[in-house]
């Protein structure tokens, strides 16, 4: 991706301002330092430290973020604040981007994760079961997670389509949703294996079930036709929607990559990748398929070499790019997404890369990086203020902004996490 440069001249700024309208690359947008107009909402956040997690990994200490109408208007070193902005002084706090979760099951009532009658739920929508601002989502916000991809479970080969939404603490569905359908959910290892005597007890059988649907969708795309049931699957094959695939083991993980990334050419993100899947890391990295690790972060029993293997570390050693982490909430409580980063770092990954793995990397692999994942001009003002290192459990979340509004404030709301 691009690297951005500070623009010294007005001309360059103007030129880029025009380009920005057509460009999807947020980092080339220029800062807006104008004063607030009537009707505008703006807050200026002064922090002891600002982790932008941009392409240059810029860190400002102390730093300033200008939030205007829900978007970041400026992020950089301390400077004069334009008129009209409310000022939030947090000299002791660190600002970091809100975290992005690609594998969550806490969007609903809690018990309704799987519908397992059909082996394929071709057009099931998780959004229909969503309960906005439910307690799990509120705690997630207090844990610094601001965007989630809420999906069906892994009981079926295609679970359905998930919904991308913000972890707002007092919102309606429309206020929270970012995109629906946000992407497709596929499960290909262990969990969807059927035992009731119907097709799907073997991996090959499950693959055949999937490919029947895939082939039909692709054929319709070629012909230019569609049916309501397969509309969204077709979008997946047209690369308009991403697909998140639950898979694991050195048997399942590369097979999933073969089917979806290499074979079908979709925007596939391989989730989990645990047990001994990391042994196939060199090949996976060569194919370029994005990997989303979690909730298991280590392997010991499957790899069988007496070592406690840090899974993320192994993929990174093999050269994985844009590795992201997940909680598979509620398996790991949603608010502990940061902890997944911490333990991945503990077991061998680079800490800063793990911060990226819960912010910009998941945003990027799901096509959301124009809006989310880093503190850059033009992106959504999803900002988390903490007392320290975002990955350190000791760091307390003091305040969370989503779309420029305070969704959680510890002093006012009490410490939820």
């Amino acid at each position, binding site marked *: 991706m691009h690297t951005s440069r500070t623009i010294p001249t007005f001309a360059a700024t103007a030129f880029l301002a025009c380009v920005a309208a057509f460009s999807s690359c947020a980092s080339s947008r220029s800062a807006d330092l104008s004063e607030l107009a009537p009707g505008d909402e703006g807050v200026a956040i002064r922090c002891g430290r600002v982790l932008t997690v941009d392409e240059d990994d810029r860190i400002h200490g102390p730093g300033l973020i200008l939030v205007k109408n829900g978007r970041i208007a400026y992020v950089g070193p301390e400077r004069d604040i334009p008129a009209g902005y409310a000022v939030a002084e947090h000299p002791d706090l660190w600002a970091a981007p809100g975290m992005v979760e690609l594998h969550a099951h806490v969007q609903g009532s809690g018990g309704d994760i799987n519908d397992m009658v059909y082996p394929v739920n071709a057009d099931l929508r998780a959004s229909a079961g969503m309960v906005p601002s439910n307690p799990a989502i509120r705690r997630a916000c207090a844990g610094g997670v601001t965007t989630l991809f809420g999906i069906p479970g892994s009981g079926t080969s295609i679970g359905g389509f998930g919904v991308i939404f913000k972890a707002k603490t007092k919102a309606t569905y429309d206020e929270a949703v970012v995109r629906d359908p946000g992407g497709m959910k596929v499960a290909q290892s262990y969990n969807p294996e059927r035992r009731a005597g119907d097709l799907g007890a073997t991996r090959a059988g499950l693959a055949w079930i999937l490919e029947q649907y895939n082939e039909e969708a692709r054929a319709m795309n070629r012909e230019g036709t569609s049916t309501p049931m397969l509309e969204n699957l077709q979008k997946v094959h047209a690369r308009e929607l991403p697909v998140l695939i639950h898979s*694991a083991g050195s048997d399942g993980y590369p097979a999933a990559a073969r089917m979806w990334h290499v074979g079908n050419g979709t925007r596939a993100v391989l989730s989990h990748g645990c047990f001994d899947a990391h042994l196939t890391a060199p090949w996976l990295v060569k194919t370029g398929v994005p990997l989303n690790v979690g909730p298991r972060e280590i392997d010991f029993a499957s790899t069988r070499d007496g070592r406690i293997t840090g899974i993320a570390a192994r993929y990174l050693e093999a050269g994985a790019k844009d590795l992201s982490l997940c909680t598979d909430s509620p398996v790991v409580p949603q608010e502990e997404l940061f902890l997944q980063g911490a333990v991945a770092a503990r077991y061998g990954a680079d800490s800063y890369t793990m911060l990226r793995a819960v912010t910009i990397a998941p945003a990027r692999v799901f096509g959301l990086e124009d809006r989310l994942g880093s503190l850059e001009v033009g992106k959504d003002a999803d900002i988390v203020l903490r007392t320290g290192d975002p990955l350190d459990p000791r760091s307390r979340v003091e305040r969370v902004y989503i779309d420029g509004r305070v969704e959680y404030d510890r002093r006012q709301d009490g410490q939820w996490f």
Partner: protein
Amino acid sequence: MIQLDLTRRLALVATLAVSALPVLAQDGEKPAETKEKPAEPADGEKKKEDEEERWFAIQNGDVYTGTGEVLRGATLLAKNGKIHSIGYDLYVPPDAKTLDAKGFRLYPGLVAISSQGLLGNASSDFDDTIDPFNSRMILALGTGITTTGAGTAAVKLKRFSVDGAVVNEKIFSSFSWSNSNPRVKGELRDKFVAATNYLREYREWQRKVKDDKTLAEPNKRGVDNTVLAVLQGEQTAKFVSNDRDELLGIAHLAQEFGFRPVIEGCQEGWTIADELGRAGVRAIITPRDRRAKDERQVLAGGASIENAAILHRAGVPVAITPASEGVDLSGLVGRDIMHLPLEPGFAVRGGLPERAALESITIVPARILGISHRVGSLEIGKDCDVIVTDGDVLHYKTFVQWAVVDGKVAYDKEKELFFAHIRPRPEAAAPKKIDAGETPPDPDAKPDETDEDVEKKDGEDEPEEKGDGDEPKKDR
């Protein structure tokens, strides 16, 4: 002291509370309960006049004593397994074994208030059942734990030896105090009344029998010996409770009869922290416990991440334990005994000072177990149980490089397969790579019982799964 009216009773409580303080300050001089195993070998070799001296020095590290002091670049010298001196320019005998800790930190060996499976497969009679070679002990030492509560005993993770591991026994008596069983509460109270009366009569008799030898000893019938032991300070009363009402009841019981209970769980303790503090309660807490508030109640309730901090501020000593007390290598990381140092971090998040966080896994559990005269901090005379770390012990990336128990290196990160490949020590051998030709394991092979199943037996279920749960589960 035979019949106490209310005023005198309160005075008695006050006296007991006050007299407990110097005991606290002296770090637990519990009489007669601590099993002192002598250092000499069990085969009965005659002790020579000038006993053989075994010296051990850890040099050049930053010594965090656990009492609030830090000595940077200092030497810790141990003689025959006990800390002899800590400081600068110490004379180290030429035949001493040494360990260069330059660039590293020294901390007291961590004390796990409770754990499962670290001592082997048995859960009692540790003198006879301890397995000092079991891999969970190695992993625990790699976490920094050098002593653990086990059942009602306190045992050292003394690797390679079966001798002298048990430090204390019969520490706890467990009592039940539950709202769902009011009868038991009443019965317990009655037992305390009976025992208190008996003690009072007994002391009175002790006083009078000096003059009149014919006086009969008071009848012990109906007196519960366990409760008596608690009142006499020989055993510690332990409760498991999370509910505000129950906690209040226990606190009142403690105040009325003058003992200091240990309460495990204590999730709603933060709502009545002052009461618990006044009652002398010691709390064993898991900061990440989640429990919803009972919405029928107006009062504050439910679990809070600020629990440890609030209790600490109210004077309740807090020991911290993880959600799972066994070793869990199934893949989900951060909530088992192997990640003990991570858990106090969440208490810090909730406002607990860093020093109290370190104490919650060192000296406070040591005191609760009645062994703080031997472990829990690095002080002269205490056992040389030390961990050498590559950073702040509460930081998520810190690893234990060496663990020393009784002045002997019991664990070296680079010598065990488990973690040697993770950020290896600079002077150690290059990390072993997985060979390119290494084949994945046979998927049809039956998994080894000692790994997964034993770990699962520690009570660690797949956590918080609803319905199917989504994470991949291999058929086993």
